[in-house]
């Protein structure tokens, strides 16, 4: 029996060798709660389904650019309010249903309806009209021009779903993408297989398995043991160098859209005093944070904007690490003897490690920080909803989310009319050059106001076997689009 098994295994491995590998095992640290990207905000959903199972009218590529998706091309009216999308022909959902313009209308109407559970309902708010001209042409009219509308349509929250299957997408996702959902062993793995009828040319992988590996120790051992071919976002930057030293692996350190900030409760004393915030900004030593917490694998930021974005302004030298200056500001604010604050930390390891370092750094200027580790649920409850906090550390992983500073009710409570005006202008702007200028202005404004402590952009630590090709280097959005992934040396 055992002997037979061995023979079988040798035979099987022979097959694999002769045909080249065409299935991939990917490591995923967080299991998605469900597989419906249009409901809920879990990034882990997009990491599995975006671009693989579901597609939107447009797609975001790994450089963060908007490229055609289900809409092969589009026209924008001169007032910037109306988009006419020309859809790909012959596209079928995985269940065989034909995709057409009605699906676009259905998907967007569903997302903006009252009672929608779409986490980014705001994307659809500017829509006033969706006109289906014919099955392959749809016009979307906005209340006013929005330069970010197309980009937003590329997000996972705006993927196109079919009316007949939408309700079950949470556990049986039906999309139009190059991969079909196969099965999900909860807590263990999610399997997707090639969609041979894919309209855009089938991918080279026959199937892909996302293995859920929550524990960073397992992540390491699973990689080393070869159980995993690729870990798109490896959870333990501290031992990345071991893979770097190993010729069997390739390590690609890229960027995510995650601005990691020391979020500060601007409505609460003493942080309502800009001097205090400036003092803190000077007390923060980004180099030490990045070395200590991220083991050198992160890019410092001085404002709430992705450093690889063309509009990014480097504000890191606005408040350089300078303890005496920091103390001076504190003294000016009347806190020469310091004060005690709490620092509520959510579970991710970057937050916990950075938190310990921040506490140590602030201690040096007399701000005594009491760390309170908490779960996400508690953090959301206390920090995000009830704004019951002094300081916290969190990574804002949504792309282009500087507009959150315009919301005076957002948890860090930055209520500045000047800034709100800038964002409003961005919303109104239909001129990309102007928009770009406004974004820069916005970045400078929040940096100057030291709304939060801007620490670093979260890195994306890609680790894969050295024959894996076509993985994303960066996470402009959370996606592991596998359409271009293949094994070198395979067929």
């Amino acid at each position, binding site marked *: 029996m055992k002997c037979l098994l061995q023979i079988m295994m040798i035979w099987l491995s022979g097959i694999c060798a002769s045909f080249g590998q065409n299935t991939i095992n990917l490591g995923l640290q967080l299991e998605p709660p469900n597989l419906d990207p249009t409901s809920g905000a879990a990034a882990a959903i997009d990491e599995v389904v975006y671009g693989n199972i579901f597609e939107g009218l447009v797609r975001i590529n790994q450089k963060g650019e908007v490229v055609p998706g289900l809409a092969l091309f589009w026209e924008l009216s001169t007032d910037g309010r109306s988009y006419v999308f020309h859809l790909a022909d012959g596209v079928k959902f995985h269940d065989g249903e034909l995709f057409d313009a009605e699906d676009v209308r259905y998907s967007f109407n569903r997302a903006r309806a009252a009672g929608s559970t779409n986490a980014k309902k705001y994307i659809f708010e500017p829509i006033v009209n969706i006109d289906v001209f014919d099955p392959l042409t749809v016009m979307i009219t906005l209340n006013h021009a929005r330069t970010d509308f197309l980009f937003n349509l590329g997000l996972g929250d705006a993927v196109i779903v079919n009316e007949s299957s939408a309700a079950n997408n949470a556990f049986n996702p039906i999309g139009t993408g190059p991969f079909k959902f196969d099965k999900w062993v909860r807590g263990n793995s999610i399997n997707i297989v090639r969609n041979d009828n894919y309209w855009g040319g089938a991918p080279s992988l026959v199937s892909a398995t996302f293995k859920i590996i929550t524990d960073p120790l397992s992540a390491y051992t699973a990689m080393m043991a070869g159980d995993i071919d690729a870990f798109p976002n490896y959870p333990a930057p501290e031992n990345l160098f*071991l893979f770097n030293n190993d010729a069997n692996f390739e390590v690609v350190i890229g960027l995510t859209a995650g601005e990691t900030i020391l979020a500060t409760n601007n409505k609460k004393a003493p942080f309502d005093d800009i001097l205090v915030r400036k003092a803190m900004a000077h007390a923060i030593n980004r180099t*030490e944070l990045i070395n*200590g917490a991220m083991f050198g694998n992160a890019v410092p930021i001085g404002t709430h904007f992705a450093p690889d974005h063309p509009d990014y302004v480097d504000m890191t030298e606005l408040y350089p690490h300078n303890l005496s200056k920091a103390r001076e500001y504190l003294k000016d604010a009347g806190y020469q003897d310091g004060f005690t604050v709490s620092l509520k930390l959510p579970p991710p390891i970057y937050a916990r490690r950075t938190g310990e370092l921040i506490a140590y750094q602030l201690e040096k200027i007399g701000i005594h920080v009491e760390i309170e580790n*908490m779960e996400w649920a508690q953090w959301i409850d206390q920090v995000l909803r009830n704004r019951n906090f002094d300081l916290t550390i969190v990574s804002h992983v949504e792309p282009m989310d500087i507009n959150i500073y315009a919301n005076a009710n957002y948890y860090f409570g930055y209520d500045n009319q000047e800034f709100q005006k800038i964002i409003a202008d961005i919303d109104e702007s239909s001129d990309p050059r102007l928009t770009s200028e406004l974004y820069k202005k916005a970045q400078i404004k929040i940096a100057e106001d030291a709304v939060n402590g801007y620490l670093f952009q979260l890195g994306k630590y890609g680790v894969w076997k050295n024959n894996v090709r076509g993985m994303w280097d960066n996470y402009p959005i959370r996606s592991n689009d596998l359409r271009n992934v293949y094994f070198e040396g395979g067929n």
Partner: protein
Amino acid sequence: MKSLPLSLLVGSGLTLIFIIMAGLSFVWTPYDVTALNIDQKFLDPSLLHLLGTDHFGRDVLSMIMVGTRNAIAVSIIAVGIGMIIGVPLGLWVAGSRMNGGSFFDEILMRGNDLIFAFPSLLMAIMITAVFGPGVINAIIAIGIFNIPVFARMTRGAAMGLWSREYIMAARVCGKGMWRISYEHILPNILNLLIVQATIQFSIAIIAEASLSYVGLGTQPPMPSLGRMLNEAQTMIFFAPWLAYFPGGAIVTMVLGLNLMGDGIRDVLDPKLRQRKGQDVVA
């Protein structure tokens, strides 16, 4: 003069070492455990840093000293809670049962069964989920599960004593349940309680380590042995000492306590059989 059992000598020796380490950490540690020094991270054990340094450049020996102190403090209080509530409860129901009332006894024993039926680590996690992670809640979570242990043990031992003739004699002298419990029962089960307390103490140390391993015990910047192990686990491939030393410290401390418990039992009552296993599973 009877010679002391080896287990007692070794056990109390080990325990003493840790108590001294913990006590010393109040006044002195080789390095400041709250001072982070990134330049000094992952240093091998050397004369400068006897047990090496961690990812923040902290001295592992100093952290173990303070971590031991925290573990001991948490365990003492948690076991204390268990004793202060559990022992009188056990005395009470044993007394009331021996005096004819079995109602409260039934309630307590059912309650005991109920608590025992709940998976302890899971409940500790739930408790800290409700009240937030931290030392106090860890103490409560561990302490709660100590109550039925002591209540049950006290009850059992007390029931055995209640049938003794000197209790009968005391009852004939008109002494009430509580007076008898205090004068006659308690002093005679003290041996058992001490032995049980050392066992529970060692269990509490492992429990504290487990809780802080999952991030629910002692909070940073206070070092804790369990959290050190958790933080170390992704670094063991290049800095294994980060896992060896704190783990070794837990093992030695618990070993010391268990040996001491065995030793005390042997000295106090050689006939007392080893019954500890039942309670160690938690």
